[in-house]
């Protein structure tokens, strides 16, 4: 199922795009909606602020996956940076990298399309945490189906030692923060968070 809407190149369109996504995903778990809203806001902001372009937002939903695509007519390519905690800018695509199950950039004759994917809640009401083990295989499948797309692999996910571990894992992540840089460490913490949210959401909280 695909639903799409066009937005004008103006600052208010960022909230419009975000609310469009939120409304369409109203039946998904809270952490998925929140992640989709934030990533949509980042990509829409890039269209308005950097590409100076109208943009189209399209949402594809299947049983397993939510895929959000933002296409614009800007000629530049977005660049992912690694800002320090004190730097004021450069975090938009990094946030997408951290939160999306998969994402990519596809150049087009008139501009580009930036997309991200998140796991969908299954029809059976299966808890979201069961998706974690499927994450790698689905990401791989996604890449195989779209080999033409410029893609930056999510190494942090593939190195994820299992996101539902004991509290010691969380401490390890925090202690490793300084060595790996904030975004690498926080990517894994974010994965832990997603697990915690989904467990809470389904009434089996470990915390």
């Amino acid at each position, binding site marked *: 199922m695909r639903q799409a809407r066009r937005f004008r190149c103006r600052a208010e369109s*960022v909230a419009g795009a975000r609310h469009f996504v939120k409304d369409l995903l109203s039946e998904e778990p809270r952490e998925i909606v929140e992640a989709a809203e*934030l990533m949509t806001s980042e990509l829409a902001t890039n269209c308005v*602020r950097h590409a100076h372009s109208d943009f189209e937002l399209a949402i594809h939903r299947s049983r397993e996956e939510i895929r959000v695509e933002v296409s614009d007519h800007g000629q530049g390519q977005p660049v992912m940076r690694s800002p320090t*905690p004190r730097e004021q800018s450069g975090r938009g695509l990094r946030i997408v990298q951290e939160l999306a199950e998969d994402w990519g950039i596809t150049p087009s004759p008139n501009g580009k399309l930036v997309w991200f994917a998140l796991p969908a809640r299954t029809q059976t009401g299966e808890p979201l945490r069961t998706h974690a083990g499927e994450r790698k295989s689905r990401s791989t499948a996604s890449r195989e189906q779209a080999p033409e797309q410029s893609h930056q692999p999510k190494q942090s996910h593939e190195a994820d030692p299992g996101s539902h571990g004991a509290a010691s894992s969380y401490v390890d992540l925090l202690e490793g923060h300084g060595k790996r840089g904030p975004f690498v460490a926080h990517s894994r913490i974010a994965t832990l968070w997603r697990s915690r949210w989904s467990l809470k959401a389904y009434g089996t909280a470990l915390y």
Partner: protein
Amino acid sequence: MQASQPGFEVRQSVRDGRHTLLLSGELDLATVAGLETPVLDLCREGVSTVELDLSRLTFMDSTGLRAVLRAQELCAEHGCDFLVIPGSGQVLRLLELTGTIESLPLADAHPNRPAEVDQRGEPPPNEPDQP
């Protein structure tokens, strides 16, 4: 003082020399301009402490975060202390995700929220302390 844009509002309060800007709504590309002006006004007044209360924001993205870091920079330039109340929702998770929470001076929320300054500039009568 009160600044208002669609989906975003800033209310100012003061207690014991600490000037708090209570932000509500959504802080993004369309609304960030509404934050810098009141912060800059306070800095120019020479207040000792500017506190950003983000606990009532319903959404903030990296553009909003940039405005918060810009506010921190403005306060440093003017010699004002700067504090942030991150709340417990999406804003806190954004600060954690980006690692910026480590560079922001966090304030505990007041046990009793500071009295708001009404449009005449006068604080309302003090309410009795809660147990």
